[in-house]
């Protein structure tokens, strides 16, 4: 096991290197560069722009250098721990991301937790009580959650909230707590605002997990060993938990590794609509505006999370299912 882990960790380094090249190319693939984007956004708001300043900006940011040199400047900085400056905000990238990453993780992890906490029991119930009323109700609700695009629900919910309940629009904190230091009260305020995005983000994920869990478990429930266990006198619950569920969990654990980056990236749209101070909108803006150091650092971070997550999920898989061998 230990040898496996060290080998994988060593393999991560060239991998991240490869990822960084791809990330850099992707960012550069969008036409223009930060300066032209910046000029375009100003011009699109009807604001006149000074092209002498644009040219000097370009020279200052090194955007007129060949791609290879730009890439090397960036990656050598990253290796030293210097993630560069954001063109737009004129702040170190690290501080920008750091401001947002905390809440992003909170949102993503709580959504993950919510999704699993709901999906697994419901999936089990659906499989065990197949075709019952409960099964149909949950199926229906699950599909609704899956089918309607999250951002549309977001806007509709907010509209109802504003016009009927006069709630504060968006954000994860009430105005009084926005810049306050952390306290129990602030956590409570956060939780009060957190449940809307958590549900919107979680419901569609939960629906698919329910279906998969149900399908997998049904597969297992029809296996002969289940009949055997029943015949041997095990109670339904014990038998369920000890055998079929563990096997049915197999695919979940496979996908555990990249759920976190998926959540971060998938929550972008909802975060924009609900006006949440998470990393998603910052990333989107950096990409659209070609703020390359910010976007690059972000993407590298997401990829690193994936790689580590994959490793964790492989380990979990091995622990869960002793039939799997790796050599």
């Amino acid at each position, binding site marked *: 096991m230990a040898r496996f882990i060290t080998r994988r960790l060593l*393999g991560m380094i060239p*991998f991240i290197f490869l*990822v960084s090249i*791809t*990330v850099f190319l*992707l*960012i550069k*693939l*969008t*036409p223009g560069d930060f300066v032209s984007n910046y000029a375009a956004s100003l011009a699109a708001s009807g604001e006149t722009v000074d092209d002498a300043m644009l040219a000097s900006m370009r020279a200052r940011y090194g955007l007129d250098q060949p791609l290879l040199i730009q890439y090397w400047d960036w990656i050598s900085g990253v290796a030293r721990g210097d993630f560069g400056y954001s063109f737009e905000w004129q702040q170190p990238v690290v501080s920008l991301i750091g401001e947002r990453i905390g809440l992003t993780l909170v949102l993503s992890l709580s959504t993950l937790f919510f999704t699993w906490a709901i999906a697994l029991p419901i999936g089990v119930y659906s499989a065990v009580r197949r075709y019952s009323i409960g099964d*149909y109700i949950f199926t*229906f609700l699950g*599909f*609704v959650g*899956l*089918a*309607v*695009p999250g*951002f*549309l629900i977001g*806007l509709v919910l907010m*509209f109802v909230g504003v*016009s009927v309940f006069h709630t504060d629009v968006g954000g994860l904190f009430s105005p009084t707590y926005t810049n306050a230091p952390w306290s129990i009260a602030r956590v409570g305020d956060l939780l009060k605002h957190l449940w809307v995005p958590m549900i919107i983000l979680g419901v*569609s994920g939960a629906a*698919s997990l329910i*279906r*998969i869990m149900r*399908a*997998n478990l*049904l*597969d297992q429930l*029809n*296996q*002969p060993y289940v009949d055997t266990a029943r015949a041997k006198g095990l109670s339904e619950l014990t038998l369920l938990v000890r055998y079929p569920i563990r096997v049915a969990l*197999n*695919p979940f654990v*496979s*996908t555990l590794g990249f759920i976190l*980056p*998926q959540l971060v*990236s*998938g929550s*972008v*749209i909802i975060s924009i609509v609900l006006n949440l101070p998470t990393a998603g909108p910052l*990333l*989107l803006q950096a*990409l*659209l505006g070609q703020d390359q150091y910010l*976007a690059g650092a972000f*993407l590298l971070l*997401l*990829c690193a999370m*994936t*790689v580590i997550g*994959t490793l964790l999920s492989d380990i979990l*898989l091995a622990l869960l*299912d002793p*039939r*799997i*061998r790796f050599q």
Partner: protein
Amino acid sequence: MSGVMLAGPAALQSASEARLMWLRFCRHRLAMFGMVVVLLMYLIAIFAEFVAPCAPDKSNARLVFHPPQAIHLLDRADDGWHLRPYVYAVRLARDPVTLAPTYVADNRKVYLRLFAHGDAYRMWTLFPASLHLLAPENPRDSVFLLGGDRQGRDMLSRIIYGARASLSIGLLGVANSLLLGIVFGGLSGFLGGRVDWLIQRVIEFIISLPTIPIWLALAAALPKNWSPFATYFTITLIISLIGWTELARVVRGRFLALRSESFVTAAWLDGCGRGRIIFRHMLPSLTSHIIASVTLAIPVMILAETALSFLGVGLRPPAISWGALLQEAQNVQSIASAPWLLLPGAAVAITVMALNFLGDGLRDAADPHGQ
């Protein structure tokens, strides 16, 4: 389990596996219902030009944000009641202060007819025709069964035309993902060793690239002089090229588990080649999971297309798809005063549900251990 029924010496009835599946499927009523709905949806999409009451891009300044009209079936005329569907016409009266569009009754009935001649179209851009399933008797009238949008275009027609793009995106993308996922996942899981390692690294690599930036970058890199449909197919492929990895990884997991199953060893000992073992023996065990994933993948593709449109890189106006329609409804004005613009969401939901019921039924029917 081939159902060889040991009846008397008279007739030896046998049923192929496919027929058994069908029989089992028929018992699942919800799945039958789902299948009917899905087939209906695809038929509507194929014959969109005929089914839609009018052209989807027929705008009318006097009919913006037109509310939905209810069909009345019985018409009372001077000589008694007739079965003649009609709707009540309304007229735009814009509030001079708020500029909000309000509609007042026009004291006029617009009669509808089945198989009436309406707006001209080209069936599949080939055959000119003008027959519509349901249209106003007078071709100069308009009918808005599901309301009108901000340019006065009929939502029902637009949803019907949108079905074409949205439903086909699902099929194409999923087919591609499926192929790649099974091939690579199977190879990875079955062969193990170096092949597994390489494929896993490739998958990890693809998965760690976050979807949205890829979509943005690749969509932005598409040549602009391509027709909307060339663009759309390419975007579909791009989405599916990312999506296959999940299926591959799961398939690999199951293959790894199945590799040590007894029936595989038996087949191997029996002298079956690798290909035969994979496709004939191991793959059917995966069928149920594959089916579940596939039926869930089609709506995911539909929703992905919606997300892309929201970000401005998917199908954009004047192209019509459910995603593009929802994007047009994504504003406070629509939600507040024209909520019928959100109906494409209902279309998506219905399609998704129907597909899932269908998938359920197929999965249950394919399960060799099922009742």
